[in-house]
């Protein structure tokens, strides 16, 4: 046997063969240790389940309660940061612009009736439209408003400010026109058209106001501001009657 590796392998094999021969007592001891360790493992897993499951159940219940009561929304909600249409406060009673309930539409000033410069004060606008009607506005418009481009929002906000904050109706009318000229199919175009019609009412441009409102009353924009427009038209017609 000249190969040193063969000799070494034989020697090591002999050594390990001897080492692997263990007494029955040692075999039995190892067997007991294994079975005991397995039992401990099972007990640990059971104990973990007994602790973790109630915690998980309590957490799930808490999350469900928070979601149901709105607490979760209050914790995770983010305030709007832009001055876009969604941040506009809800309007008070009076000349109701579109979105008096919806968050995507501008509000009307609470003292709007007294601000009507010239002609007859439009009676219908004294009574705010019922909420059920105002909420019938197409929801797609609201979601679209949230993603309106910055420029579109800027133009809309400028008109809105002149209309509902400074109440400069001639300037507001020009601003609504500017918005609609730039974005005739803009995401806030229906609101802008309705507000423009209100400006015309305020400015006493009755024929133009009626023409503008008729589109809403006909349902060209679905149910959006349809009821309010009908009432306004009735009021304008009544005022026009002798």
């Amino acid at each position, binding site marked *: *046997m000249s*190969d*040193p*590796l063969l*000799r*070494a*392998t034989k*020697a*090591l*094999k*002999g*050594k*390990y063969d001897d*080492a*692997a021969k*263990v007494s029955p007592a040692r*075999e039995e001891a*190892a*067997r007991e*240790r*294994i*079975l005991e*360790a*397995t*039992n401990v*493992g*099972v007990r640990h897993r059971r104990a973990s389940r007994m602790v973790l499951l109630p915690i998980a159940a309590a957490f799930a219940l808490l999350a469900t309660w928070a979601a149901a009561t709105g607490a979760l929304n209050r914790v995770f909600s983010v305030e709007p940061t832009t001055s876009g249409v969604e941040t506009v406060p809800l309007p008070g009673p009076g000349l109701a612009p579109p979105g008096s309930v919806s968050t995507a539409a501008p509000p009307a000033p609470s003292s709007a009736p007294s601000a009507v410069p010239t002609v007859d004060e439009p009676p219908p606008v004294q009574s705010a439209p019922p909420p059920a009607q105002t909420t019938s506005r197409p929801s797609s418009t609201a979601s679209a408003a949230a993603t309106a481009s910055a420029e579109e929002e800027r133009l809309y906000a400028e008109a809105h400010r002149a209309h509902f904050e400074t109440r400069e109706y001639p300037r507001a009318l020009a601003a609504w026109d500017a918005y609609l000229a730039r974005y005739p199919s803009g995401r806030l175009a229906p609101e802008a058209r309705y507000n423009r019609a209100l400006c015309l009412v305020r400015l006493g441009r009755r024929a133009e106001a009626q023409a503008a409102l008729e589109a809403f009353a006909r349902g060209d924009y679905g149910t959006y501001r349809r009821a309010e427009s009908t009432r306004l038209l009735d009021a304008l017609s009544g005022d026009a009657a002798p």
Partner: protein
Amino acid sequence: MKTTTLTLAFLEPDAQSLVDRLRRQERSALAEAYDLYHGSVRALATRVVGDEALAEDLLQEVFVALPQAIHRFEGRAQLKTFLLSMVLNHAKHYVRAAARRRAMASRFGREPRAVSLDGESEASRSEIARLLERALDELPLEQRAAFVLLELEERTSVEAAEIVGIPEATMRTRLFHAKRKLRERLEEWGMR
């Protein structure tokens, strides 16, 4: 699941029953598996690790892990083969610890030295075995496993490949490289 069931059908009825009971976490099944296979598992653990105490720890770790590991057993091999593959999969830490222990013993005790060629005396065989152990410590684990399975346990390359879960040719290649390195090392240490 269907494949597993079909393959298990080729096992011996008793073995299949044992696997089923192990999957149901039956304590008696684990005891039975130990009684059946502890000899083979202990022998391989001892040969791979090269340290009796650590090999005993490895044996215990393998059997304790068996009730969970059995869910990965697909029945394509025998349960014994599965257990031996578990030994190799769990051996890394133990081999490293044993190698550190041997290296430390060498540093503070005997250094490898030239061994007489007679090799017939007990002292000579013991010294030769110790040199081979140290040479094995320098091999990557997969080459070490190949040497242990094929040379020390004298398994066929088919069996060894099945235990390790690699192609037979790869197993032979690993053995070739292992033996080349071991020879070089033994010659460096004066074995002729």
